[in-house]
């Protein structure tokens, strides 16, 4: 039982540490994209997304979009 308890501590500790490192890496990638890539920077600042051309046909879909559940 002592061994199992130690194993549980070891497994949880390892999983927490590895996950934390992995997520740090993912967050780092996301933030570096924003800082060092022009497109990423634009996306971070441009909250409204890319400008889309408005046409009656596209608006039809957009209208349906609003009506959908």
């Amino acid at each position, binding site marked *: 039982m002592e061994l199992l308890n130690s194993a549980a501590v070891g497994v*949880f500790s390892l999983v*927490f540490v590895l996950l934390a490192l992995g997520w740090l890496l993912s967050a780092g990638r996301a933030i570096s994209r924003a800082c060092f890539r022009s497109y990423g920077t634009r996306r971070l600042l441009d909250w409204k997304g890319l400008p889309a051309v408005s046409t009656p046909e596209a608006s039809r879909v957009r209208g349906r*979009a609003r009506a959908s559940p």
Partner: protein
Amino acid sequence: MQGFAPLLSEGLEYVTRPVLWNVPLPLVVLVYVGGIGTFAWGAWRVWERTRPARARGRIAPEVGWGRRARAFLADVLLQRRVAREAYAGTMHLFIWSGFVVLFLGTVLVFLEKDTPLHFWYGNFYLASKFVLNLFGLLFLVGVVMAMLRRYIFRPARLHQTLSDGLVLPLLFLVGFTGFLVEGARIAAALEGVPGASVGGVTPTFERWAFVGWWLAGWFRGLVGGESLGLLHRSLWTAHLVLVLTLFVAFGYTKLYHAGTAGANLTLARRRARGALPYVDLEREDLETVGTATLAHVSARAALDLLACTECGRCQDRCPAWITGKPLSPKWFVLDLRDALVTRPPDTPVPGRVIEDEVTWSCTTCMACVEACPVGIDHVEQIVEVRRNLVLMESRFPSEAAATFRNMENSGNPWGLGNHTRAEWAEGLGVALLSSGAEVEWVYWVGCAGSFDDRNKKVARALARLLQQAGVSFGILGPEELCTGDPARRLGNEFLFQTLAKQNVETLNRYGVKKIVTACPHCYNTLKNEYPQLGGVYEVWHHSQLLADLVKAGKIKPGSLDSATLTYHDSCYLGRYNQVFASPREVLRSVGGLKLVEMPRSGREGLCCGAGGGRMWLEERIGKRVNLERAEEAIATGAPLVATACPFCATMLADGVAARGEDERVRVVDVAVVLAEAALGGL
């Protein structure tokens, strides 16, 4: 650091907390039974609705368990695809990581309480409390970021539904009340309320649970003594009711993507992006082709639909949507999904669920697929609808009829005599395989290189470069037919297979091993789709071969007059086949040229508008896609716009001319740039 120090060597058994102290037991039972039961009922509803899809066959595994495990690790657990966008990615990463760690915390508590294991005490307890508090806090930060984004800075691509309005506050309240419960328990323990701490100790070590500790101080100032026990019990009750609601929400709101998206990214992971599914048209029991009704949605497609998180990244990048066409990849998926789970299976898809113009607007550029954080293949599903329209309903744009006829009668979309295919090579001494030439490479010229005057120059440039480098190559000439790519993307699978089988027969007859082509559409079809018909070859794009030859010193690039140039990524070369570097290497090898990138480049490159057979269709709605792209290229100020695709070159040149910039801006293929530098002109 008083309180952070006591990593004790004695009395470690007391450095822990009582599990499920002061909890109203009936409520716990209600959460387990009611919550999980309601969730299961919601999940069962969806499961039942997808019965026709599942009856059409299981999702055949396309990749091994190793790749699935890697996908689970990178795309699900570590959120690699989600984190491609800085704000939304970080926001979701916080929520997800908090969710996972808090879930692991629950598992940990379960193991401690309901199994013979006893390990949650002492230093491990302190460390775990710190980690759980940290990630719990990140969870709340992520939810607040999401609320700010949804309620204050909402991007156009996000639509709002009632459940969207409820889910985020619910997540916040679950996380927040979790901390309040902890704070109340610590406060009660510090005030000596019986049962609030193990062994009745005063748990100053709980400083490691830094958020709970801070809240405990606040509670002690607010409520004193025994009342803290009552407060703790009340907060527990509120927390459990919220958890119960969250369980229910998982079955009935888009929160279920936590399960379906993970399954889509791992279990249903696709092998290659460039190959459309093969249809055995000679099967005797074949009743229909493509998506005729909701009952014809495949299991894989159904999982795709259910995985959608409604984030709208696909819509933001879709060239059709950006230029005002009626296609939004997001709404294509959501309309189909909503129909799948609410309408009868015999509901027709084309014309009823998905309007024809939506289907024909797609350029199959894969920007949506590339952007999708949960691995949905919109393009595959759009082509399935097209297949039904073309092969079963005979309902398609009139221009497509002419293209199909030309390909059928002449073996090329232009409808020009196929016997003139090799005329571009006159005087160059290029070997024809029919003459018995033994060559290492077959140069697959493609229809554009053979018949289109602009692209004949590319063919000549490439042939001369290969000759200079001493590459042994030949061409098929009149024996080459269109690969069938436009027909397949337009939904005419029958015509595609007719042409492809003839080409495979020809290539296999000559024992061809290696193919080089300047057309990314031919490249993709030969490389990824011909194996479905027994044609397996080593296929190179000319930019890859040229880059190799330059590196090997077999082509000396030389230099041109000093100029800047920009490079337009072909979708079928870039996003489809991950060839981003080679064309740029070729361009950078030429002295005097300075490469500047457009804002949308590489994986984020914008389509020219020609893919998916759109090259052969009129563009009547909204702004022309090639204009949108040409304007972006013109805005770089570069006098040269390079590309590595004959169709992109044609579309961009038309766009540049339409903006009256054709005197200043020249659109050229990378092979032409290299040939002008290396050979001193063409």
